[in-house]
């Protein structure tokens, strides 16, 4: 499978990446190069093979339901690009 420039733009939007035209063109070439390598997977007959999500399976991990100290408001806001009155602040948009 190969990826068109239009698809690169679509995927960039899904990924919330504001790419330049130049980046879109370069990525198209690079992604196709990588996908060529990945295409080996398409040729495999994997009918009936179970997929593996985690190699070391653990199930139903429980812990006691106890209230504990979490991140403080001060720490949670420590790296905020902008903040006001204990909240994250973003620019005002629209009307």
């Amino acid at each position, binding site marked *: 499978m190969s990826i068109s420039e239009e698809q690169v733009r679509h995927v960039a939007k899904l990924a919330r990446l504001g790419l330049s035209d130049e980046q879109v063109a370069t990525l198209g070439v690079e*992604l196709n190069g990588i996908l060529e390598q990945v295409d080996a997977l*398409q040729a495999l007959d994997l009918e009936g093979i179970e997929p593996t999500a985690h190699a070391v399976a653990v199930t139903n991990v429980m812990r006691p339901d106890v209230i504990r100290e979490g*991140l403080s408001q001060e720490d949670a806001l420590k790296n905020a690009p902008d903040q006001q009155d204990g909240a994250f602040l973003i620019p005002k948009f629209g009307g």
Partner: protein
Amino acid sequence: MSAVSVDLSSLSVSRIREGLRKREFSAGELAASAFARIDAVEERVHAFNSVSRELADDAARRVDVLVARGGELPPLAGVPVAFKDNMNLIGTRTTCSSRILENYESVYDCTAVRRMIDAGAIPVGKCNMDEFAFGSSTENSAFGVTHNPWDLTRVPGGSSGGSAACVAAGEAVLSLGSDTGGSIRQPGALTGTVAMKPTYGRVSRYGIVAFASSLDQIGPFSKTVEECAQVMNVICGKDPMDATSVERPAQDFTEDLHYGVKRLRIGIVRDRLDLEGCDPAVRARVRQTADALATMGAEVGDVDLPSCQYGLPAYYIIGPAEASSNLARFDGIRYGHRGADPTDVMDLYMRSRAEGFGPESIRRIMLGTYALSAGYYDAYYGQAQKVRTLIIRDFDRAFADFDVLLTPTSPTTAFTIGEKASDPVSMYLSDVYTIPVNLAGIPAVSVPCGTIDGLPVGLQIMGKHFDEATILRVAHSVEVSTGMDAVPPLVADLGEARGTVVV
């Protein structure tokens, strides 16, 4: 401050503990020596994104109080250590070598880091890496490339290249890295250090910035196998903050190191060793090392892992797919870089992310988003997860006949800076031997097995789930029989000055 100065590159964890107990030197002097070494070589190596002098002084003071009190010292007392810059530690920035997190201050501690410091280690700094751990050379850092102490014109490998280089250069005695497809073992091989990826679930992942959650694992760099085992004793164990960490009986990984390899069944992975891209000299080194192990009493045979040929393509779907999901959190709202003057919320996201992420991060996010997007999921992610099952079956079959398996860690020795930087596919091939291990979740260690043209070669020893003890035992035998006594030229040069220094 006393005039005693210590050469860290010649001291082991055990020697440091003994020296502290006998009052040959203090933890404060050990910390000062680490920073003296950093000051002397860092301009050439650039292993660190930041150094943490205050944290180091605090930690050293705590150790010196323990020494003054007498009694048992904790296992890593006074040992200068460094951490990959994707591990949170309060009092340091955690940048992942990315512009998007350039000013990010840690607000909590990574469990593995905490355990090292609680065991008496002295944190000297945070190590350079490929941005968000995407890479095999540390060239993808937003803050400059790290140089290999064996040859400053070459890469140290990656993505944990800074963690590897600082140990090789004697700037720290130990370090931690993270390994998603080889990011500990491959730089270990390229810098002549001992480098381990533990079994998935052995070490808590709490507090590392996630790359691919089903593959990531934290592990140590050290100069010797014994020190690798000593770090494993400290960092392993269940953590309530990581639901994928596994409860296991407490174990001393140093216990079996000296048992040797007699009657141990060691499999050379023949079809992997014969890969076209593998340097014949590397291949020969691996065969020679296996011969040496046979001489020591191991039963050495050949085995094939045919499904591993699909490891690389499966990884380049699974890794980016999970990464694209994990990196969705960097949106310019709560932390990290925010683009200026956005027109609406969408524009704020698009600008913040495009400005903050470097080229390789963008490439991986794009690849992963594409693989997970409507209409492509089954063909890519679904198919890759089934290949993962086949690879696990291959390993299960091989481990029915063998206790451990051998391959090179990396198909080549350290390559030159810039050599592969412009070709993502050839860079990805650096991890051809290490990737199947992450897909199967098994443990593996890279141990130096000699040099070619003055550059170290790493042997990868792979084991069954949770059988780190056996691979460490084999690694120790390799170290004893064919291991390197060579040190990087950088360290040897400083060693001449060492003559004037009193230990």
